[in-house]
């Protein structure tokens, strides 16, 4: 018998009941909620469904919160009602909520690992597509819809179909200036935004082993942009060192038991995957998207591709529409394109190391004239850590705005928007039409590349700074 994959091992231990045809009733060991969850809580309350296991449920506020410096409960009044209803529903349901101003508040995919709520081997869901981020801790984590959120709240379980497995092996050493974000954007450029559809995607190889946990979270965050709703990295010593001592991580003797169990999780050497991709990391330069889909990506040293260079007429049309929307010309170098806005934040890249990296580049430099540059920490805890290290001062002295934690300009839900027609370099995960505000033009890149764009006023190769 062939060995088992990490995915098989975690999946199998959560099966409550096989339902036939590849479907199973799965036990949910961690349910995370953001401020969009009030509707599901209210729906269930009205139907008389109690939250089945509040101890396994964690909630925070992120999408609708203001990120204005010095925000209060009344800032951005159009959202106050929404946040209040989340507070009220969590209270009625007995769900623990990390609210504005408390350590623990932040983007749900940042605080899960930060609190130690996200643990290796768990089956974790959240009503948000970037839940795949948590896979960086060595668990099965994926986004669900609002009806499924109701189902999980009421039954602590979910009916799911077992996906196929895929492995992307990244071997080699990262070149200077190349980050986890570049690895995953490069992969999406290679396999396309539907390349991982139907698969649970394991990231493996020497380059992944050498990534810190924060980089692994960034990598897994974009799995859904590759079509895979589940993406993960096997847990290892790096994971355990990151987790130990976090507020909700196991303690004492339980910690040792847990680690002993987690060590059995990685895929067996003879495990077979339904699809394999191999990437030579040495060939990857810093990446930047040029279009309106994450697969519209090039190295910063490359030229903007010509739609005529592809055979598929549908692809050609999509590429031309993207160029028109972005106001770019095929064949021109992407570097040197003038930039109006820079956003360093989101569940992809708003962690302490991302902010440290931006601050290191900003030190002694200035944001270029005409550029508005924001840094939005992913959580209250990160904000406090960064301030303790003086990073906020370095950034504000250079001309960046230092803001309060939340999703912010990643999806412009809370009113933080890039104005129409303006060009933004963003560390988030979606460059869709209008994602950062109607008419906004988004280029996705790493925090280092985003900082470089802010400081030079153009899309620039961070290695030349």
């Amino acid at each position, binding site marked *: 018998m062939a060995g088992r994959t990490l995915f098989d091992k975690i999946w199998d231990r959560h099966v409550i009941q096989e339902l036939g045809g590849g479907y199973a009733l799965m036990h949910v060991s961690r349910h995370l909620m953001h401020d969009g969850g009030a509707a599901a809580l209210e729906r269930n309350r009205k139907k008389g469904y109690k939250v089945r296991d509040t101890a396994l449920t964690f909630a925070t506020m992120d999408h609708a919160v203001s990120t204005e410096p010095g925000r209060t409960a009344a800032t951005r009044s159009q959202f106050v009602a929404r946040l209040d209803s989340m507070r009220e529903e969590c209270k009625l349901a007995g769900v623990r909520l990390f609210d504005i101003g408390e350590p623990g508040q932040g983007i749900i995919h940042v605080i899960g690992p930060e609190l*130690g709520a996200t643990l290796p081997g768990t089956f974790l869901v959240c009503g948000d597509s970037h839940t795949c981020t948590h896979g960086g801790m060595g668990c099965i984590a994926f*986004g669900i*819809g609002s*009806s499924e959120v109701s189902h999980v709240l*009421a039954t602590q379980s979910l009916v799911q179909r077992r996906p196929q497995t895929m492995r992307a092996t990244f071997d080699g050493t990262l070149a200077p200036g190349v980050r986890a974000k570049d690895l995953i954007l490069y992969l999406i450029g290679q396999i396309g935004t*539907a390349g991982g559809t139907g698969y649970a995607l394991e990231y493996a190889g020497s380059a992944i082993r050498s990534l810190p946990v924060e980089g692994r979270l960034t990598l897994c965050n974009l799995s859904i942009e590759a079509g895979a709703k589940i993406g993960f990295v096997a847990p290892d010593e790096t994971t355990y060192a990151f987790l130990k001592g976090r507020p909700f991580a196991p303690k004492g003797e339980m910690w040792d038991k847990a680690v002993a169990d987690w060590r059995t999780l990685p895929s067996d050497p003879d495990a077979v995957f339904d699809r394999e991709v191999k990437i030579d990391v040495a060939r990857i330069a810093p990446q930047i998207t040029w279009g309106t889909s994450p697969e519209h990506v090039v190295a910063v040293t490359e030229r903007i591709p010509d739609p005529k260079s592809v055979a598929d007429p549908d692809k050609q049309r999509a590429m031309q529409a993207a160029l028109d929307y972005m106001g770019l010309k095929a064949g021109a170098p992407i570097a040197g394109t003038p930039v109006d806005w820079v956003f360093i934040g989101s569940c992809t890249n708003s962690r302490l190391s991302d902010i440290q990296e931006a601050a290191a580049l900003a030190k002694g430099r200035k944001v270029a004239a005409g550029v508005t540059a924001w840094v939005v920490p992913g959580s209250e805890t990160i904000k406090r850590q960064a301030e303790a290290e003086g990073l906020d001062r370095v950034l504000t002295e250079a001309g960046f705005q230092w803001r309060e934690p939340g999703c912010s300009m990643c999806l412009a*839900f809370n009113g933080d928007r890039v104005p129409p027609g303006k060009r933004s370099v963003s560390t988030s995960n979606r460059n869709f039409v209008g994602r950062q505000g109607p008419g906004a033009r988004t280029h996705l890149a790493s925090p280092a590349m985003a900082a470089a764009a802010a400081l030079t006023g153009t899309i620039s190769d961070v290695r030349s700074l």
Partner: protein
Amino acid sequence: MEKFTKLAAIAAPIMRQNIDTDMVIRVERLRDLPPEKLGPYAFESWRYKPDGSEAPEFVLNRPPYRDAKVILAADNFGCGSSREAAVWSLFAFGIRCVIAPSFGPIFYNNCFQNGLLPVALPLEVIEELVAEVEASQGTGKVSIDLEACTVTSPSGKVTSFKIDPLRREALLSGQDQIEQTRGREKEIAAFEQGDRQRFPWLYQSA
């Protein structure tokens, strides 16, 4: 949930790859509107001009496609955000079936929670359907039979599709999944008890 059994309806071709859920429903609409009021906002940025008037060239604004219950689409329909409002807005508009070569995985699941049938067919088959529909100026109906798992083109060409039996049953009966799972209380409780013994650290500090 509304049942889905059979349908013969106008089908609107929107043959663009990677139609994401942001395109189906704008994020601003998630704020205040209940699911059943989202119909006017499906594909909002394509259906209306910046001044709020209808964009006459967009397919869902043209007769007979205004009455479409089926959408014919290209690869990776419904990719992106998990927002279930994408399904709600299509449903409120009147759409009951989307036919595409592939779907965003979360959108695909959300469809089944709301009585909307996603049918995966090869691109060539969909292109033939589009050709027939367009040749009839949109009046030729596309029929979907979930019991037989077939799609029939306006000219009568029949193609079978595959769908998971469990999903098919749920749509055919319109059953509520939460109620069904609550019926498995014994299994869930037994699992929980065992899980606490096998993996006590999951319950320790949480």
